């Protein structure tokens, strides 16, 4: 009921915004309904340590994107690995999705697709699949987000929900390069490595009814402490740092692979340049001779050799982002841990 009412209520605003800058207006904020958030968290936490994905439904109104409902995609296969892109493309998945949407519309839930959610493990969500999925979504809906939930991170007593979207700069650069992220495009757009994916501020909003129920439930209880606060005081620090370090090591390996590609390209380029210079010199001599003899001048483009293609920067950017993600996690974590250890040390010393 409330959903429908609100949709009607805000309908004019949406059309206004649409006439203004519907084409370019990016998502500036995401409002996640409490119920949907719980659904997402439950699905992801249940699937952990495997991965899980699902569909986000909601309303695209004004600057903020309302996510009001979500439903999970079924797991494919027994191995627990789940490829959101593959599932989306496959017949069954699409059918399931349509069925789900139809059913949800029948019970009067918003049946507007606004994005998808997925679980991650310690922030390892920067991949080419992510970019590809974003782009395939962007074909049908202009504004879409991905909500990532990190069960492992949540164990530290943090809200581990994140809303992500591709930055416009990146999309432009990517499209200008026709699916390739070439250095020229990067420079043209002035794209920085940390501008590939943007994090959108995410707020969880409950309906008045839900808030009232919550208030009713907690009435008469001690509100200063809850279970997450206990989680925050957990002193076992090693596993989290260790996992992050391992992942960082893997990132370095990926980096090294990229590095090899670059080195290979450099070698090829050098060879090509020397060959080309040689050829050009010969051709110029030939042309000078021809000019002297009054003949037609040969073109100075070399038909035989082609400059080697520089390796794609996309992977590079994504790895950099990944590293930045790990590092920021580590930084947050160690800062907190240090404080905790100080605290414990002081307590023990007393």
């Amino acid at each position, binding site marked *: 009921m409330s959903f429908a009412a609100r949709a009607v209520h805000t309908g004019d605003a949406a059309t206004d915004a649409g006439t203004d800058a519907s084409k370019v207006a990016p998502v500036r904020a995401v409002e996640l309904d409490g119920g949907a958030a719980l659904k997402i968290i439950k699905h992801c936490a249940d699937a952990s340590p495997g991965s899980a994905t699902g569909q986000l439904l909601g309303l695209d109104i004004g600057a903020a994107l309302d996510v009001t409902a979500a439903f999970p995609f079924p797991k494919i296969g027994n191995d627990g690995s789940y490829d959101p892109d593959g599932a989306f493309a496959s017949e069954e998945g699409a059918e399931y999705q349509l069925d789900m949407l139809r059913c949800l519309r029948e019970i009067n839930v918003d049946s507007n697709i606004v994005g998808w959610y997925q679980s991650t493990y310690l922030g390892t969500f920067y991949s080419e699949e992510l970019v590809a999925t974003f782009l395939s979504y962007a074909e049908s809906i202009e504004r879409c987000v991905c909500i990532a939930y990190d069960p492992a991170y949540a164990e530290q007593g943090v809200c581990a929900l994140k809303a992500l979207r591709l930055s416009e700069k990146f999309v432009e650069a990517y499209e200008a390069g026709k699916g390739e992220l070439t250095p020229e495009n990067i420079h043209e757009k002035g794209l920085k490595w940390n501008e590939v994916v943007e994090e959108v501020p995410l707020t969880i909003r409950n309906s008045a009814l839900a808030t009232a129920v919550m208030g009713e439930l907690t009435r008469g209880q001690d509100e200063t402490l809850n279970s997450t606060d206990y989680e925050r005081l957990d002193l076992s620090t090693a596993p989290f740092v260790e996992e992050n370090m*391992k992942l960082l*090591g893997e990132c370095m390996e990926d980096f090294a692979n990229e590095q090899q590609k670059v080195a290979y390209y450099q070698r090829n380029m050098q060879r090509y340049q020397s060959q080309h210079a040689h050829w050009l010199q010969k051709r110029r001599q030939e042309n000078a001779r021809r000019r002297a003899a009054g003949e037609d001048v040969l073109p100075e483009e070399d038909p035989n050799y082609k400059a080697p293609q520089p390796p794609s920067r996309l992977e590079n950017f994504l790895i950099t982002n990944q590293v930045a993600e790990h590092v920021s996690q580590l930084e947050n974590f160690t800062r907190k841990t240090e404080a905790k250890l100080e605290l414990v040390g002081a307590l023990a010393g007393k």
Partner: protein
Amino acid sequence: QSSKFWGADSDSSEEVSDDFSDSSADSSSSSSDSEESFQGASKYLQDDSSDSSEDDRRVIQSAKERRHTELKATVSNVLNHLSSNDWPELVKSFEKLIKHIDKHYAMPEQVSNSVKRALMQVSETVDSAYADKEHRQNLSTSFSKALSALRQRVAKYMKTVSLDTNLTLSSGGDSETDDSTCDSIAKKSEVEVDKKDKNYLLYADKKDVTYEMIDEKLQDITASRGKKSTDRHEVVRHLLYVRTLAKCPAQEVEILLHIISAQFDMSNSMASCMSVATWRNCVVNVLRLLTLLKGNSHIALIEQGEPAVRVDKDTILNGGHVELAGSLCAFVERLDDEYNKSLQNIDPHTQEYMSRLQDECFLLILIDEVIGYYKDLQNAESQVKISLRLLSHIHCKTVLLYEAMRRFAFERLDTKHNHKQVIIDATQEPQISNMDSYYAADGFCFPKGKLHEVVSHLTERVYTIGDQRSKVRAILYDTFHKSVCGDYDTAREQLLMSHLQQSINHMDVDTQVLFNRCMAQIGLNAFQDGAFGTSKACLSDLLASGKARELLAQGISPGRHSVERNLEQEKLERRRQMPFHTHVNVDLLESVFLVSSILTDTHDLFIKNRQPRTSNRSFVRFIEGFERQTFNGPPEGLRDTLMCATKHLIEGNWMAASDYITNMDCWSMLPTSEERRDYVLKLIVSELKREALRTYVFQRAAYYESLCLNTLSAMFGMSVDAIQTTIHKLLAAGLAGSCDPPTTSFAVHLTEPTALHLAVTIFSEKLTVFLDANERSLGVHVETEASPQHDDEESYMKQRSARQSRDDEREDVSKLRNMRFPNVSHSTATCMNVGGDSRKGSNKRYPFTGRSL
């Protein structure tokens, strides 16, 4: 001559018999019969003459006769076949005829008229037969084939013959200068008359010769220089004679200059070297030149540029100032090069090599004298060049060797009987015999002073007046020399002070080779001093690559690298090779390196999560290779033996290991005295025990709570004190544990590194690898930038964009770096917390170790 003909004859008879056996399948024709009978006769003749007769005349005549009859028979054969139109047979006999003519006559025109006529007839008949198409069609296939083949063959042959005939006609037919065709004395005299106007000087009476005549002759020779037709040996001989006629010192100097360059010209390519005799002769000439120059200060050699206008005859004769073009420095350098080249070309295991080595003392004398000459002239550049040449000869000599050489030189200079014999044995030219008398007469002598005095004198001079490269070379020579003489400490310090390790990669190849030799020598020396670690460090660069021979310029090792080398590079490399007697024994080097590695690095194999870059990779590779073998038989060869020893050492059986090592043959090659060698071997054994202990501790200590030092002492045959010392050293180096003096035991505190520990280590390793790679590709970028080719706009744009992207990358890298540091510090902070216990434990024990020491 006769023997030559005989040889040719027997050849031809063999071929004939070959032919015969080929055609014997056919019904034999009359020709082959006659051939056979003739062959038989010739055989008898041949035997006869070679056995008994020594009369040249008769032999020659019989040979000629035989040739004629043979020829006649062949010709008649050809004509027979021709008249009967038997084409296949005709092909055979015609071939035989041509072969015969080719063999016995230098020119086909010299054959008798009858043969010529026969040839013409053949050609005509064949042509007409070929032209007659009907006739051809009637022939059988084999016949027509033979006919067409014959036609082609004949046409070809006639063409060459007729061409030659034309030639002889145009030249007048009088050009028969070949000795083999005309042996009449009259002609010889004619030749001499021809040459008379040119070479009159050579036959004229000595008194008649004037200055102008000599001058003219010299100019004549100069003009003929470099021409293909000139006989270089002849030129030298003439010049040598002319020299005896010289009217004044200035002229003699001029002639000498010509002689020396003519002698250098005698070897016609860079690859081949001068003959020993010529070389010696040349040394004498240069010495003579030197004496003249020293004795006559009015004669000056201009080394660069053209000399002033020639002074007229009178001033020269009267001893006026004369300038001549020539360079003693260049001569000496060339002589030195030739000497090295000849040493490279002679098999070093022969007597010839030994006798060639004796010549080195003359070279030393010569170089020393020339240095003196340049010192008087104050020509710094040449002085440095020549000084380096001298150094290159003496730097690898020990004092003993040098003294022996000096004695040898003195003996040669003093007593004239011996040297004459020696030299005449080795050479044929009589001029050489007076070589030593020059030294004696003109007061040449071996460089004065002791070896190290000479070396230090020379190097100091180079330091003061030389350029950068010469200084570097001088330092290296000096270092090598000191090292050879056993002065290890000075040599090492000198090398370290020179800071050459950083810059040597930018030097020329020869200097790099010299540097490598220095390192090898110092490595050997360090080993003899018991500094095994240093020895290993010195040699690891040389031996790890497996190209030690190439790096020391002591031979070209075949292998995968040889494929990439092209011919030109190989030639260059061959020219670089060191002479054999200066070689550093590579086998010895390898065993020294491996033994040093065994003594210092075996325990390294068992240190967990050690940094891979600090380990001795080649050694580890050898061990892994050895362990990979399914069956290890008794060791054969150097490396195998040492790996076997390592294996035993790892098992804790140091006795067996020391047996293997001390019984190796190569120790006899260590260039030291007997006592020193024994001392080194003893050092090796004691160090081996220590290494066995270290290996044991690292390998097995994890299984124990504590180790009793007494037990260890019994196991490794070391005193308890020595064991304690070793263990304390290990503690200081980071072994987790502690000593307990009251119970003389060693408590083990080994803790496994935590998973976090490992993860951090792995991460930091990967990071360094990545950063290195990044720096490298950045370097490539910068390099390409350094040589800009902005000639076309496209590449310019490309480069500009590349530069931009590089800036971005650099930013990324710097960010990464900044990231790395807080990161690592954080993680190490946590590490410290996690693994802090063990560290604290070992830290606490430090004062402990100090006290017990």
